[in-house]
């Protein structure tokens, strides 16, 4: 009984820590899908791209993966702005975003993945850093640093994004663009520009999330796929466009997955997010903290 209690506590703690990381990968989609209504299913592919950038900078220059990803932030921001520009001109302007916009992002997902396979191959890659390896012990609870560090920085990242959204002019404009574009235009703000900035921020988070991912686990080009269901389950469960909701939902899913893999075996864990997604859609489509 003592043994299984330890197991339970450990499973919950590691679930919360992993949940912090999930929050980072889902926050980008929470911005694009939740606020801007852009169903960016290619987001996991950009996260994997972030992982490979961190890997390349780490293995060639010995940079810390998180510092590497911060260096790469402007590049990801520019990538996001570019993609939004194409998306806007080709789909949003023509009013065809639902079918063809989705296909567009699906194509991007596929191109990114195959391009990474062609360039790096399908071998698993990992990074070196001082905090990968050691584990802290608090009584019976083990806290691996390789999960704790990404979790902490991820929460920091989300706090910063939330502050930007709620305190700055651009941030408030981003929240407004989701509600009333015409009113925004009447305030002499260009909604397209605001959306471009918001989408660019959402892709920029993928750079950091990618570094977290490759710190936590070795990465190969197609692992992003496992995260698609999880990311959207978190966004829907948390309530569309709510970052605090995203964090809560991410930790909830992290804990449920961790319990599932501890007590039923890790091969069942991927089914958790889907079950949660379907349940949420059926019972409370607005999510936990939905507007």
């Amino acid at each position: 009984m003592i043994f299984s209690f330890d197991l339970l506590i450990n499973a919950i703690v590691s679930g919360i820590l992993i949940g912090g990381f999930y929050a980072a990968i889902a926050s980008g989609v929470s911005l694009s899908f939740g606020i801007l209504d852009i169903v960016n299913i290619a987001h996991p592919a950009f996260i994997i791209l972030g992982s490979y950038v961190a890997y390349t900078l780490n293995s060639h220059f010995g940079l810390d993966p998180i510092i590497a990803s911060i260096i790469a932030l402007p590049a990801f921001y520019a990538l996001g702005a570019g993609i939004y520009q194409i998306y806007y001109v080709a789909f949003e302007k023509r009013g065809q975003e639902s079918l063809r916009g989705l296909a567009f992002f699906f194509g991007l997902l596929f191109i990114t993945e195959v391009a990474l396979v062609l360039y790096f191959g399908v071998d698993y890659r990992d990074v070196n850093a001082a905090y990968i390896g050691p584990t802290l012990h608090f009584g019976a609870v083990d806290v691996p640093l390789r999960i704790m560090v990404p979790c902490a920085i991820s929460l920091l990242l989300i706090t910063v994004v939330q502050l930007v959204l709620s305190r700055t002019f651009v941030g408030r404009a981003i929240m407004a663009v989701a509600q009333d574009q015409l009113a925004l235009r009447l305030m002499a703000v260009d909604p397209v520009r605001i959306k471009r900035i918001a989408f660019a921020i959402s892709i920029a988070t993928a750079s950091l999330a990618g570094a977290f991912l490759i710190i936590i686990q070795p990465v190969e080009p197609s692992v992003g796929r496992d995260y698609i269901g999880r990311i959207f389950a978190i966004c829907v469960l948390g309530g569309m466009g709510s970052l605090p909701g995203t964090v809560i939902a991410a930790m909830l899913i992290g804990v449920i997955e961790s319990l599932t893999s501890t007590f039923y075996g890790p091969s069942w864990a991927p089914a958790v997010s889907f079950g949660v997604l379907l349940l949420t859609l059926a019972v409370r489509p607005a999510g936990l903290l939905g507007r």
Partner: protein
Amino acid sequence: MRTIPFLLVSLAVAALVFAGALALGNDYVFFAGYVVLQYIVLSTAWNILGGYCGYVNFGTGAFFALGAYSTVAIYQLIAANEFPHVVPIPVLMLIGGVVSGVVGLGMGYLTLRLRGAFFSIATLALAVVLETLVVNWDFVGGSRGAYILRPETVPLIGSYIRYLALTMLLLAVASLVIARLIERSRLGYGFATIRDDELAAEASGVPTLRLKLIATTISGALMGMAGAPFPYYIGYLQPDSTFALDYAVNSIAMPLIGGTSTWMGPLIGAVLLGSLQQLIIVTISSAVNLLLVGVLLVGFVIVAPNGIVGLVHKYLQHKGDDFVGRRHIGLEAPATVSAEGSAPESPS
């Protein structure tokens, strides 16, 4: 053209294709042709929901794999007997179709009441979950995969691959006939109203949820039917490759490249892209082939939103030549409705 003559013409074309392949006298033609035919079925099936209703399904691989794994399950059930091949392929297709259709109906029921994007995301996640189930289900091979022994020959037809190609050819004809039938029936007009403006359709009394469920079921069932013979084709079925995103991206790319609003689009897309892929796999590599599909998909979606059919239509219209008018191409739904003089048939 009415449905019966269309069916006869399609069968005649199919017979010609099959005879032509036989005349080449090389079984490789059937190996490659099977894949192209399979993609005709998959992209036509995808288009019934995606092109006609405007709901994007990313789970083609999942529905396809459902069909394939139904076959494996049946094979394992009767493998203990001395005759492992008592179940003919068409029966397996029907079973696979029923399984996939039911799953499609359930998926649709849970997600189609919400905005379209939720359905798309759920289908994407469905593939992951079904793969999890299959990996954990030892009866159908689990993560190790399952071997299927197939007979060398089939009476009257010859080698087994010819038999498989023939059944897939007939399924392709059937799916095209079904798609065309839907397009010209009340059902198809209902689908078009959902695609063009779901809210307005709902307000005008179109039973949108029921229509969407019908579309999901038909589409899923056809995908499952396409998957059912696959274990016999490949010989060794493994979850990773069966649930691969390749099916999803191909079955989306082909209709979008061909043109989504008519049955011809998926056919053109599948034949062109499918043959091109077979060529590239043989001559260059399969990774490059997938890259090409992605690039073509993105390129066509941006540059030619109505696909090849749309380009041809625009060109003909531009020339002022009304030989192939809207009625035959059926590009814009409202135009189709007004041009189609005959009374709409009731959905059956």
